[in-house]
């Protein structure tokens, strides 16, 4: 379990490297470093950084300023049996990256980026901080624990049977 957790942590960090930097990686043949340093793992797993299939170039902004996000969500596990594991910050050429996963009942319930490179000063203009990096499993509506749904405007008829409708009902 312990080893597996670190493997996941490494994978999560690798994913963040992959997903976070893909837009910036276009001009360079380099792959994002797979340097992962789980908090107390004796040896880092491979970050399993796959090459992205992102096509097209991003609009630049390959900023390198590092910045800790001020107050990302939550502390350690609040509910019974859940715990969080935070990896060491990994220095990349874009700045430090640090992830934290929450595990409950043998399942990852959250993967959060504790520190992400703060490429654009304008990113800070929006008053928000958390950047959870969710796993595919967590993306399923239920396990992602979403509060609401944004989607192309539905008609009154389209609302019926929508995910939002289900959420409204569940909350009533």
């Amino acid at each position, binding site marked *: 379990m312990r080893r597996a*957790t670190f493997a*996941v942590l490494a*994978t999560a960090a690798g994913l963040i490297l992959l*997903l*976070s930097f893909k*837009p*910036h990686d276009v001009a360079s043949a380099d792959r994002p470093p797979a340097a992962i340093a789980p908090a107390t793992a004796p040896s880092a797993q491979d970050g*399993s950084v*796959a090459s*992205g299939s*992102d096509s*097209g170039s*991003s*609009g630049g*902004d390959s*900023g390198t300023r590092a910045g800790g996000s001020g107050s990302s*969500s*939550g502390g350690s596990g609040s509910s019974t049996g859940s715990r969080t594991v935070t990896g060491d910050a990994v220095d990349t050429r874009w700045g430090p990256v640090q992830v934290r996963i929450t595990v409950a009942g043998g*399942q*990852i319930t959250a993967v959060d980026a504790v520190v992400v490179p703060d*490429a*654009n000063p*304008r*990113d800070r*203009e*929006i008053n*928000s*901080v*958390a*950047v*959870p*990096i*969710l*796993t*595919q*499993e967590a*993306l*399923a*509506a239920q396990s*992602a*624990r*979403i*509060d*609401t*749904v*944004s*989607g*192309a*405007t*539905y*008609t*009154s008829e*389209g*609302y019926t049977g929508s*995910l*939002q409708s289900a*959420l*409204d009902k569940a*909350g*009533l």
Partner: protein
Amino acid sequence: MRHVERVMGTVFSFDLRHEPSEELHAALRGAVALLHQVDAVFSTYRVDSPVSRLGRGEITLAECPREVAEVLALCEEAAAVSVGYFTGAPGGRLDPSGVVKGWAVERASALLRAAGATRHCVNGGGDVRVSGEPEPGRPWRVGVADPCRPGELATVVSGRDLAVATSGTAERGPHILNPHTGAPATGLVSVTVVAETLTRADAMATAAFAMGAAARDWAERQPGLEAFAVAPSGATWWTGGFLRYGLVEPAQVPKPML
């Protein structure tokens, strides 16, 4: 406290993370009344609404309720920053709908906040404004519907005090026109915009959708605005700063092993 209201041809969901109180019930009633009032003034489906009459030249702007001028100014602003991809007169007919819903939700959200409901979410037909956080220490999580796979999510936007608007063809087909060609926009299947206010996010999502693929570079240049889009091929792209709020390209995320 939850409330669902059908108005403006769609459904508005209110989610107030507070203990019910008479004050908050009153604020909620006020917010709902506001939406109906906005609909009465701005609906282009009501032939007798001030905006319909203004569009037909039966009355002047000065004769309209004051907020009509405010909304038309917002339309002009949106048109300017989007290089004409947003328009308050699609097809040449006065129709500020592209701004009205987001603006109305923004006003409803402000009204709730002023009444002390600092932790709430207002969802107007898929366009979302969140305030504060749903519970201490946790951000709101706004799932973005996958336009290609009904019931699934393309990404999740997470944060506090922000707005998330999505434009796309999934629900109503190709209904957004490219103002520069007059033809339905088909360059994207869906685009989601994150900004500080829904007034802005809603209008810019509409504009970005009309832009199609060009929206990517355009969105990167807009301060305080992030975007995530799904192309007709199913490929997705996002602006650099989007990763501060949301994430994920599910197909590329390996299943965790535990």
